[in-house]
């Protein structure tokens, strides 16, 4: 029963991954990504990482995918909805991917002793995970939070519109626009 569930989820994940990569329309690509993430979340649940599954769904699918959509909207030329993608290096890219997959697959298959313990060890619940996070890896935990903060501030600084008289959709938030000389072309 369990392996059936795994099969479905894996197939669904793989299929949607292909869709992300191959779909001509970017919006479809983003949505398919959402599907892949949900499928992986399912797998997490099956692997006993229920908390992670929920985080995955909540944060990844909710946050990242929506953010992607926004990004997509912002960087698309007005009104052209045609197939934007013309991939150019698909042949060598595919070759590299296949070779890499072949090598890793062969490695996984040929190393025996992967499934040595018959009885799976006790599952790690959210409490255990929380304790591990806060007690054993507190330093990493704090650094990650710092990193997130830096990333967000950086993103804002990078994407801030420099010239006050720019395109009409000037974000109301940037009222105090500093008179920064126009970036030299």
């Amino acid at each position, binding site marked *: 029963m369990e392996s059936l569930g795994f099969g479905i989820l894996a197939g669904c*994940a*793989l299929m949607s991954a292909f869709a992300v*990569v191959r779909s001509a329309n970017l919006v479809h690509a983003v949505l398919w990504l959402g599907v892949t993430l949900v499928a992986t979340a399912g*797998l997490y649940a099956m692997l006993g990482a229920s908390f992670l599954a929920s*985080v995955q769904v909540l944060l990844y699918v909710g946050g990242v995918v929506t953010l992607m959509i926004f990004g997509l909207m912002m960087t698309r030329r007005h009104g052209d909805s045609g197939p934007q993608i013309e991939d150019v290096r698909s042949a060598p890219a595919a070759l590299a991917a296949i070779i890499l997959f072949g090598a890793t697959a062969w490695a996984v298959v040929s190393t025996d002793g*992967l499934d040595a313990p018959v009885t799976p060890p006790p599952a790690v619940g959210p409490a255990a*995970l929380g304790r591990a996070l806060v007690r054993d890896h507190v330093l990493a935990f704090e650094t990650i939070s710092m990193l997130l903060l830096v990333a967000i501030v950086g993103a804002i600084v990078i994407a801030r519109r420099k010239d006050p008289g720019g395109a009409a959709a000037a974000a109301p938030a940037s009222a105090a626009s500093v008179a920064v000389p126009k970036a030299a072309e």
Partner: protein
Amino acid sequence: MSLASCLLLAAALFCVGLYGLLARRQIVAILLSIELMANAANLVFVAFGHYRGGALGQVFAVFSIALTVAEVAVGLALAMLLYRRHGDSRVELASEMKR
């Protein structure tokens, strides 16, 4: 539902993401592919966490997710810049360094 199968799945996902990274021209599509590859990596973490025990797997997964989010944020900001500068978000445009 053995560890090997999980690893195989992760490898497949990773390679698909890699293909996307190499083939796609839009910067957003590339970001998506990177998401995919990161996700595959998380899967491996969780799988080993599950089959070998210990919280370490999941801890890594959490951190990895956090990292990926940060990366997407900055990525999109760069995409905005590229779009604003070149009017399109194809990645080949950013080749001023070569001249």
